[in-house]
């Protein structure tokens, strides 16, 4: 199973679009946070005591980023040409894009945690 999954993951295409998946999820989560707070405070009439919707949204965002990061991590370790992997070959290009995606996933993961932290501490709309 693992081998099959591993094989499937490393066959996925790596492009400029997959590179920006993790930060796009961060951006979507950020927009979600902003709208969630604005609509609760301006329209619903107060801060929810248990922000379940927000927690779910945040966990989904973290899972998506982690998923993109893990796939990219596996892709960035596809065996191929010799180190330092800076040649103009298919595998080095893929490793580069995949590794950059891993890094972006890490940054985006931290970014989502940063964004979500205030909801743990603040309890009203003042």
């Amino acid at each position: 199973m693992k081998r099959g999954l591993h094989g499937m993951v490393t066959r996925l295409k790596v492009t400029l679009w997959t590179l920006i998946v993790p930060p796009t999820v961060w951006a979507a989560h950020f927009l979600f946070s902003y709208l969630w707070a604005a609509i609760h405070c301006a329209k619903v009439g107060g801060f929810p005591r248990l922000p379940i919707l927000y927690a779910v949204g945040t966990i989904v965002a973290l899972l998506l980023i982690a998923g993109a990061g893990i796939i990219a991590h596996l892709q960035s370790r596809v065996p191929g040409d010799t180190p330092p992997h800076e040649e103009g070959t298919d595998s080095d290009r893929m490793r580069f894009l995949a590794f950059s995606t891993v890094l972006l996933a890490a940054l985006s993961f931290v970014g989502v945690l940063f964004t979500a932290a205030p909801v743990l501490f603040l309890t009203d709309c003042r």
Partner: protein
Amino acid sequence: MSLHAQDDPALRAAQEDRLRAVWAPPQGLFLRWTDCNNNRVGVWYTLTAFCFMLFAGVLALIMRTQLAVPENDLVSANTFNQLFTLHGSMMMFLFAVPMFEAVSIILLPQLLGARDLPFPRLSAFGYWSFLLGGVFVGGSIFFNAAPDGGWFMYPPLTTRTDLSGLGADIWMLGLSFIEVSSVAAAVELIVGVLKCRPPGMRLNLMPLYAWYILVVAVMILFAFPPLIAGDVLFEMERLLNWPFFDAARGGDPLLWQHLFWIFGHPEVYIVFLPSIALFAMMIPTFAQRHLLGYPWIVLAAVGTAFLSFGLWVHHMFATGLPKISLAFFSAASEAVAIPTGIQIFAFIATLWAGKVKWSTPLLYATGSLAIFVIGGLTGVMVAIAPFDWQAHDTYFVVAHLHYVLIGGTLLPLFGGLYYYWPLITGKKLSDRLGRTAFWTLFVGANLTFFPMHFSGLYGMPRRVFTYPSELGIDYLNLASTIGAYLFAAGTAIICFDLARSPWRQKAPRNPWNAGTLEWLAHPDDEDWGIRSVPLIESRYPIWDQKDFVKKVDEGRFFLPDAEEGRRETIVTTVLDARPLYVVRLGTPSWVPMLTAIALGSVFILTTYHLYWWSLAGAVATLGFVLYWLWTGTAEIPEKDCKPIGHGIELPLYVSGSSAPGWWAMFITMMADATAFSGLVFGYYFFWTVHPEFPPSGPGMDGPGSFWPMVALALAALSWGTTVAARETNRRGIVGTARLLLVIGIAASLAGIWAGLQGPLTTGLDPELHSYPAIVWVLVIWTTAHAGVGAIMQGYTLVRSIAGRMTPRYDADLRNITVYQHFMALTAIVTYATIGLFPGVA
């Protein structure tokens, strides 16, 4: 043509003669200004932006002179307002952003081994727009009519015509015009980086400068349009009395602040990243080794670009938004320090690992990093909301932003000037003068801005024309003024150094022994850009590829000739840079300049309320654009393919997603959709601020859902017929395709009528309240787009009838289909919002 054919010197000389003839610049007093070659337009652009910088710098000196002593009366409060507004606006809109575009127009083709960028005439159009708009805005101060509301032009001070004069209109319309040219340049640069790389230069071999330019140009696409949307609302309020920002009639000044800062904060990174990109080119050269952490730098660039769109409210911490909203933006503002730090560490590590040559450009690079880091650290301080409440609108913020901009933009650009001057003129600048200037600037900047931290904390507010002696900040202000003069002296030394350049001797080729492609340039440069387009196998081909320079010079790579007497370059695939086709480039022409003048007249005449004349300007603009497209684009080649050497034959025509034109349309429409989303944001923003939305009462009850749904159906019909026309045309059923286009035109025109019926029949009065006003704006935006869609459909129909668009050569039809996709999306969002949302709300 075989490899060995290039051994023949006679053949090479003949090729060079042909290339030289094809790329010969236009001569003559007037004709020379019709040039569109990147090496000329880029230099004009750079010089113009440099002059605007000097002008805005002089404005700052006058301000510092006024503030040297308390209770000074050198200039009046009114003049002072104009000075700081124009200083900020010019430095941002007329220097920092255009300078990056200008430098990129010069450097990018060289870095990518291309003969020119894909749309040279678009670069020329961007330049003339920039010059015209810049002179209009900058010149206003000589008529005591300069904008005076601060560079962010907050309403209601600026929207009330009794409180602010023509200056606000000049700012809004003049700078909107320049924003258009910025977006044009962004389109050019994105397509250039993605599609005009030399064969073999895969994404992982691309020079980091190109990565940064790609990222920054994409940021421009998403950052400038919200400001354009804001400008539209702003001018609607000033010229037509539609109350978007007037709280008494349901508007909200905060909407402007949101739209401005959604632009304004990414803007900071838009001007900072290209300067960091210059470091990424210089540091490997002076460390004489590959840059460490290439993917980490890409992470930093892309990560910063994304995060920078989550920071805008940190300019609005003091506006009374809920703390939870502030906290989100505070969190993102802290997070952006991570990627920024990473790239600085990558540079330090590279220098550490290499054998450093302490050249003048490197001195500027390291010195500016030191200044930038101080600005970055105070940035982390003001990103914390409670600290910001103390420091907001004081000189602490002035100190912070100048440290960031001088360390992150100005000094790196001076470093880049010393580094790239030999590339552009073939001559080096003086090391002695350069170093003297550097230390003068370095001391001057710190002496000017470091004391401002303290004067700010002691309570000196921004934007005041004088201060009382009792505040106890006289000596701090005097120090700042002395520093400002020192800084000006440093700049003067650089200008003196530049002025002496024509009398200096030529430097050797590649004087810094750099490894990247741009240094193929020869001191006695030819206008053809590059002798032959190389095959790239390394990030530093001059260092790593054997006999690289010789092979390029002897035309042993691709496209060494111009047999058909056309300007050409190679278009390749996005990921792996496999050759796709040979694109024929625009040649010198009056059209870009005339189009810029016509478009400029629309904006400038509107400023003076000469609406009929500006309408005439708009018609002229349309005429020039159509002429430009008809004569200069999607030309059917005389043959299908041509050889580019090494046994490779490439087509001379492609359409659809392989073609630069398709990408340009796609990218332009992304910007357009972003501006539109700014307007939609306005609608929903008003929903959140009003307890009752839509409000009830006469003149506010509309637009109903019937007409919006009719208009939506017509937009869908227009979209469907265009897509069907593309498919039938592709299959060779030309008659049906033309008929479908006719139906599409009719649907688009009927869509305009139906769209306007909604607010018209329900009597929505846009002067009454922000709700009818925002509905009207959305409808006007969408119907105007339907009108442009109809013009495009008509144009394509005529092209088909004239035999310039055929089943095989169908770029026009494919490009307008992209437009129709976006048009359909716009119609769905607009008509669902105005027609259905009131029922839901």
